[in-house]
């Protein structure tokens, strides 16, 4: 499986470290809503189909990527840096 890193280009999955579901938002740090925290920490949508997920290019540029990948086919449908501000200069090689 290849993951098209916006900085490094398509690279083998072995260079990446999976960081899991990307649909969760961390509650406000001071929040005491235990249900929200529980949901954030333990629950996942785990869809069979397109999945929004983080991957870190740990064996490369070390940046976290936000992928949409189909869990039925492993096809990567979209990719971007997780940290929006980084998108400058992307596109090669």
């Amino acid at each position, binding site marked *: 499986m290849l993951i098209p890193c916006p900085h490094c280009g398509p690279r083998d999955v072995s260079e990446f470290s999976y960081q899991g579901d990307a649909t969760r938002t961390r509650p406000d740090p001071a929040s005491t809503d235990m249900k929200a*925290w529980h949901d*954030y920490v333990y629950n996942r949508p785990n869809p069979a189909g397109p999945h929004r997920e983080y991957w870190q290019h740990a064996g490369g540029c070390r*940046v976290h990527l936000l992928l949409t990948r189909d869990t039925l*086919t492993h096809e990567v449908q979209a990719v971007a840096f997780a*940290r929006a501000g980084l998108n400058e200069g992307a596109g090669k090689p």
Partner: protein
Amino acid sequence: MSARRIPTGGLIDRSRTVPFTFDGKAYTGFAGDTLAAALLANGITLIGRSFKYHRPRGVFTAGVDEPNALVTVFKDGVREPNIPATQIELYEGLVAESQNRFPSLDYDISALNQLAGPLFGAGFYYKTFMGPVVGPLKGTRFWMFCEHFIRRAAGLGRAGYDKDPARYERMNAFCDVLVVGAGPAGLMAAEAAAKAGKRVILAEQEPRAGGAANWSGETIGGKPAALWAEAAAERLAAMDNVRLLTRTAVWGYYDGNNLAALERVGDHLAAAPKGAPRHRHWSIRAEKVVLATGSFERPIVFPGNDRPGVMLAGAAERYANQFGVLPGEKIAIFTNNDGAYRAAAALKKAGGAVVAILDVRPEISAAARALAEEAGVVPLLGHAVAGTAGKRLAKVLIQRFDAATGRLSGDVRPVEADCLAVSGGWSPAIHLASQAGRNPAWDDRLNAFLPPQPTQEWTGAGAFTGAMSTAEALSSGRDAGLIAAGKKASRAKLPEVAAPPLEAGPAPVFEIKAEGKAFVDLQNDVTADDVRLAHREGFVSVEHLKRYTTLGMATDQGKTSNVPGLAIMAGARGLAIPEVGTTRFRPPFSPVSIGSLAAEKHGHFKPDRLTPMHDWHVERGARMMEVGLWHRPMVYGEAGETVEQTYIREAATVRASVGIVDVSTLGKIAVKGPDAAEFLDRVYTNMFSTLAVGKARYGLMLREDGIALDDGTTWRLGEHDFLMTTTTANAGKVMQHLEYYLDVVWPDLKVHLASVTDQWAGAAVAGPNARKVLEACVTETAVDNEALPFMGIVHGGIAGAPVMICRLSFSGELAYEVYCGAGHGTHVWEALMEAGEAFGITPYGMEALGTLRIEKGHVTGAEIDGRTTARDLYLDWMLSKKKPFIGSALMDREGLIDTNRIRLVGVVSLDGRPLGGGAHIVEKGSLEELGESIGHITAFCYSPALSKYIGLALVKGGKARHGTRAFVSDALRKRFGPVEIVSHHFFDPEGSRMHG
């Protein structure tokens, strides 16, 4: 040479005689032979014994699809079992042996199994061997007793235990177009893509390119097809943008158009060239793939279809045409299609006597008729083989056959033959396509599955697509190559093919039903009756059929048995074959050496990670140990010392005077930027924004779920510049944890992280004389209590190298961590040793380090084990109430504050005997009657400071048990004895020594 060797022709090199042995007997063959060809040429037709019934077996095919002729090869001093003789190229001194027989191939006692054949039907073992319900053999005993014998009877070849000395390699390749298969189609595809300027890889599993052209007897462009192929391959090999890989089977089609291939670099050589691997594992990333993998011939199933001498018609033709070997002297042909007629003519031409052609069809094409005439026989149409006789094939029993009803009729007539060439039609080699495609589609004309719709970037060409003629192979090959290269199909003229205009489709006859064992899967001894038995017992799904009977599960993965098996099941169910479906194709396409996949990890599983002072430790006789990938000194033993004596000496020296330990392995992360302090406040449980520049602080991190993650000190080197240290084991994990929060959770923080673990060599100097040691060698800074108070940091030099010194203590002594550039590590270390000489400084290893920390009650990975909380470890004083931090929201849940959790305590052995890591603690009991565990020991040592065996433990209730007695209960090491539970701060609990 033998009578079986045809005097001329073929692609072998008759000028090079190659000696080899089989079952200890010496033979010769020619360069270019496979072992199978050479054995046949020597008149050897009995080559192996079958899996279950130990029936004599010969050569059935001429390629990777071989189910029968498996042998063990001896090379490099080791044995390699289960290699098809059809895939072994002859080399000088080749030693091969038959397998799965005792005492000899010719007389195998286990062949008696056949007598009990009906007992051993599919699934028989599920129905018996359950043993008595009572008595000594009850439970699993009886089964295990039987299993012992079953296991010995099963299996094929025997593997050795000696380390494989061969070299294996991995190779990464990138190309625009990967063409799989170098038959006529693949050659055309590769050339077309290459001419279009693409980077091309052409992979062919056989030693030579050409595929069917090597034995078809056809001509292409006026030349014998084999020569045309050779020329095409040469043209390709000469192009810069083409890599032609022969002896390379593409075996796996993975996501992202990543294909895996195995190149057998040295198997055909008596000795591989220096530095060359035996096998090379190619990981190929291709923009586009052209699958031109051709097709496999399949047999017709009939009783006695497994006798040595029965083989596929295409294989017989190939032995004659490519290897110059006659597979028999009296050859009968049995077919349901035209293809075998070409084989008949070729075998006749090669000098064989074609004694009969039996065709299940009532009528045949004119072209087939003409070939029969060439073969010198009148085909018996509407006939079939109803049985065979002879240990090696001697007779073929024939009968009238009605293809419409599938019935035999009339007299059974014997025909003398020592070879029966069978053809049941051809199936495209869709294995790779199915790994990267949907469900294959059944084709009624070819009676075969065609490639599925792709799910990846491939197109097909040639016989693979069901286009069975060479002319079609050429044109579809060129088109596929062009399309893969992003071009349009071409109309330009193609080389002319001279070939008989044979009809490609077979009659839909898959099995001849008659008395006797008719094998579907030759290797696993699955018979047609087994398939029907499976049906009767409800195992009607093809996947159930496979698992119940083991059909298709052998080394050939059902290449010859798949379609016949499905057809028989379809017949039993009264369904059409496509309704029954096919079993799932999986990698590898053909077996792959495990060594090649391990590649350079073979012999070196993981890289060694060395500290800057590594060589010094080794020279000093340190005994090294693995900590993750690192090598660290365990003890610096002196002659005659035990490990325990050494660490006690080392630890005692530290407490009495001074010692030095290599702490370079601690994870170090540079945390920099305007928001660095804020970031640390969020990730640590305690405050870092309040830390003064030039000071360090001990910090604790939790996971989001409130469990402790890691601890370490972080040094504030500048307003916006921190140096974080982590435990050795968690360095990578913590780095990733921090990077995740910066990238994903708090992208607006201006903080950068850099791994500087390797930048700094670290030496901890500890002991009452530590300051004196530093005073003796540190320049450019004072190190007295004022200049360098507890948790202070100074910059200076040692022996000319810049150093950074922080006064902190893991040992509980007055101690300093001296950091210098890693390249100066040994230099600084030696200078410290020299400065310490006057004080009797000792280097100490992990064991003494552990001892000192246990005495102090400091926690490490054994206590922060991913299940403990800060409270469990009595680190709750570090949980800031002034700010939220990672883990603060969930750390107070009921399960995490339960008073019955296991919490940190100290234990002291009361019987003067050692404790043991992993021993449990009980309130009562004995080794005979183990008590209920209330916790376990995480670490233990002999404490020179206390002159006792002590340990740290996690025990239910924790502190509440201080002062109480319990027992250490170590069933595994047979140790039971009294302990006292005490505070984990054994030594200098006030910390007066380190603050001193």
